[in-house]
């Protein structure tokens, strides 16, 4: 073992064999988890959580048709083990994907200035031919389980989101949660959120930072999509290369039957070819975990985008409020001085058909004053809203950027480690095969 020399990175000769401390991707994910827990929110400090199992259920859906769906088991237990050092029995409840979706929508609407962690994909995308696109496929379900756990941990490790009561109920109250979340009335806000995402409006003085951020998130989305697409194709091809070698196994076996001296060597080399061909399954399964890590950030870009859009809406509303107020003030001025600066039909008709009475004018003025007062209140509110939004959003954005850089760096390094592991397996197999061949 390289125990003492430890991190002597200088000499490449020592980068030879020994030491089976290779890390698998699941171990790398554990590292991620540990990082989240270590940073710790008060929630995580007192509660351990995981999504430990998945099960198929059948039942009648809303249109009274039989459907099969999957439920996931959420386990929670106090973070500190019992005073006697025992591991306490976890609390458990089952949730299906749609409930996670509901939770997330609630969070999106309630914390529009926060980049809400994404859920694992609804449907399998970026599949390559061996990978199933079926939602009920066990491998897909397994990867989704991991993704859901990841989602919970992300929320639980967020300084603000972790304190949310509804989130806590989601984790602990199987039946009562749904009522609680509906009671918050968040669904009313869903519509306005949809509006903010899809509406097209022009902001006169866009905040440059948000514009840049939106552009970045769009570009990142494109870049990661592209990468995932190509990776899937590469995986497909690599699968082909390995599997074809399996044919050697069969053919060598046939051939070995007629050879006296070469027979044994051929036969055993053939076995190694079978091993080689089979090894790709595990290799690519691990790579799927890596792809999932990239996908998480792909979906994160959507969350970032919606924060930017929300800001745009608030900014727009602020501008509208200011514009409105300005207009009203102008009207007041006109009314007060009797000058018509702004063309209005009413103004024209009153010119043509006679002036209003003094009383009428005073009434109008009073109403306008009231409007203006309200308008000023509104403007103040909107300004405050905007200011607060920008402050909180930007704080979260900075937090997110750091998290992203850290996580992605780790993911890429774990990818490199996977490649190394694959190479080591390859070296082993071909070295064995070579030995068999030389004995032919």
């Amino acid at each position, binding site marked *: 073992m390289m125990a003492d020399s*430890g991190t*002597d990175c200088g000499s490449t000769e020592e*980068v030879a064999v020994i030491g089976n401390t290779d*890390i698998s991707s699941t171990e790398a994910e554990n590292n991620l988890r540990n990082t989240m827990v270590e940073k710790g929110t008060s929630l995580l400090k007192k509660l351990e959580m995981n999504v430990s199992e998945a099960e198929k259920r059948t039942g009648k859906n809303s249109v009274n048709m039989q459907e099969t769906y999957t439920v996931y088991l959420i386990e929670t237990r106090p973070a500190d083990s019992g005073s006697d050092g025992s591991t306490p029995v976890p609390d458990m409840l089952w949730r299906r994907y749609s409930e996670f979706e509901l939770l997330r929508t609630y969070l999106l609407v309630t914390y529009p200035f926060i980049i809400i962690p994404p859920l694992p994909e609804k449907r399998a995308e970026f599949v390559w031919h061996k990978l199933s696109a079926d939602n009920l496929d066990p491998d897909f379900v397994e990867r989704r389980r991991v993704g859901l756990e990841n989602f919970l941990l992300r929320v639980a490790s967020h300084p603000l989101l972790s304190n949310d009561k509804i989130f806590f109920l989601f984790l602990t109250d199987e039946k009562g949660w749904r009522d609680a979340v509906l009671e918050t009335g968040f669904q009313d806000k869903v519509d306005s959120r949809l509006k903010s995402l899809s509406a097209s409006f022009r902001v006169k003085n866009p905040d440059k930072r948000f514009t840049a951020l939106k552009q970045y998130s769009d570009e990142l989305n494109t*870049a990661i999509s592209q990468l995932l697409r190509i990776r899937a194709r590469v995986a497909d091809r690599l699968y082909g290369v390995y599997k*074809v070698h399996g044919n050697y196994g069969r053919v060598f076996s046939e*051939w070995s039957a007629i050879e006296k001296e070469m027979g044994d060597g051929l036969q055993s080399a053939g076995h190694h070819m079978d091993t080689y061909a089979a090894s790709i399954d595990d290799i690519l399964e691990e790579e799927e975990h890596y792809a999932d890590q990239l996908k998480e950030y792909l979906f994160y870009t959507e969350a970032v985008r919606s924060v930017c859009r929300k800001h745009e809406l608030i900014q727009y509303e602020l501008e509208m409020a200011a514009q409105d107020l300005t207009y009203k003030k102008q009207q007041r001025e006109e009314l007060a001085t009797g000058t018509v600066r702004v063309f209005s039909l009413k103004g024209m008709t009153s010119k043509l058909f006679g002036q209003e009475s003094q009383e009428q004018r005073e009434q109008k003025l009073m109403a306008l004053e009231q409007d203006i007062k309200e308008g000023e209140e509104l403007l103040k509110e909107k300004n405050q809203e905007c200011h607060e939004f920008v402050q909180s959003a930007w704080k979260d954005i900075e937090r997110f950027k750091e998290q992203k850089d850290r996580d992605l760096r780790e993911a890429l390094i774990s990818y490199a480690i996977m490649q190394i592991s694959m190479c080591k397996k390859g070296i082993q197999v*071909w*070295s064995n095969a070579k030995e068999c061949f030389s004995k*032919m």
Partner: protein
Amino acid sequence: MAAELSGAVLDLEEDEDLEVFTKKPSLAVSGPLPTSPSSMTNQYHLEREDQEESQVERDLFISVDNPESHVTAIETFIMYRVLTRTTRGDFDSSEVEVRRRYQEFSWLRSRLEESHPTLIIPPLPEKFVMKGMVERFNDDFIETRKKALHRFLQKISVHPVLSRSPHLKAFLTAQDLTPHKKQGPGLFSRMGETVRSMAHSVRGLRSRAEEFASIQDYVDQFSNSISSVDKVTQRIIREHREYVDELKQYGPAYSQWAELEPGGLSEVLRGVSRSVELCGQETEQRAQELSETLLPVLHEYVLCSDTLKAVLRRRDNIQADFEVKKDALAARKVDPETLQEEVDLLAEHLEQANVSLRGDWSRWRSGMSSDVRAAFVSTAERNQQHYEKCLAVWESFLLSQKMDPHRPDLEPTS
């Protein structure tokens, strides 16, 4: 063995074959493996010859190289340089150079087949390219063919009987082969013989000796097996090439992403991109070498199978001729004395055929064994090397991230 060949006899500097030969190559190459495919081919050839001819002192060295396009009014074809170095007395000089085209190699082979019907003549590369076998036509095709022609002459040069053939000598030395080509029709151009040797079943053959029956069985099965191995290998190469094509897009996807990101992450992404690119290049090379080293050997033995079948058929025919005449003698249908002479002649002919086939068969078996072994050993070695190189690429990436490849669970050292 190798040491017996003194440098004084031959001009070592120019012939790369010989240089490697005198350095006593072994199957387990300890030094840095040659990366140029042609030197690898030479090396494995000599390994084989080393084993083969350890008892025989080599005195004839032939090489094929320098393909050149030759244009006449009627056609365009490739001429190859055939260089011979020898100590044999019956050759006018110790070094001869001629230029030959494929047609002339073909002529040589036919002549040898006619003169020695039950010897196993090495195969020539195909006349026409097979679909899927060679993807890029021109340079690759010519190169592949040139190497196969070289191998063809190599094998003949170490054959105890074939290397003494006057046809070979003419091929190697005559500046103009045309007069030789005109020397009367060979045995096989006679219709009867041709038809008979093509027939699948042989008339008049009563029973084969156990010995030849088992050779026939072997040849049939070998033919299937070697053909399968050849096909699998072709597929492997194809799959590799498709994989490499995708890899070429994979690296850039990372570097394109890198352009969006700030310093730290960008660096990591670029590191991955570079690593992917390097591995891609290495994989491309691996595929190329597979197709230059392993595939030609396998393909040669696929062609050999046909030769073996033909040789066995010819031997069967000779036996059949003999038996037919023997029966005729027994029936006393024609003049017994003349018949007896003929029968005796045919008996001798048969005996000779059997002896030469027997000898050449065991020679072929051990040659095939060592060729196949060498080719697969070097392939396995190359594949192992491939992974070693890729491993080094990724480990150096990790090091560049200031991580210890052996303790990736640790935080990076700053």
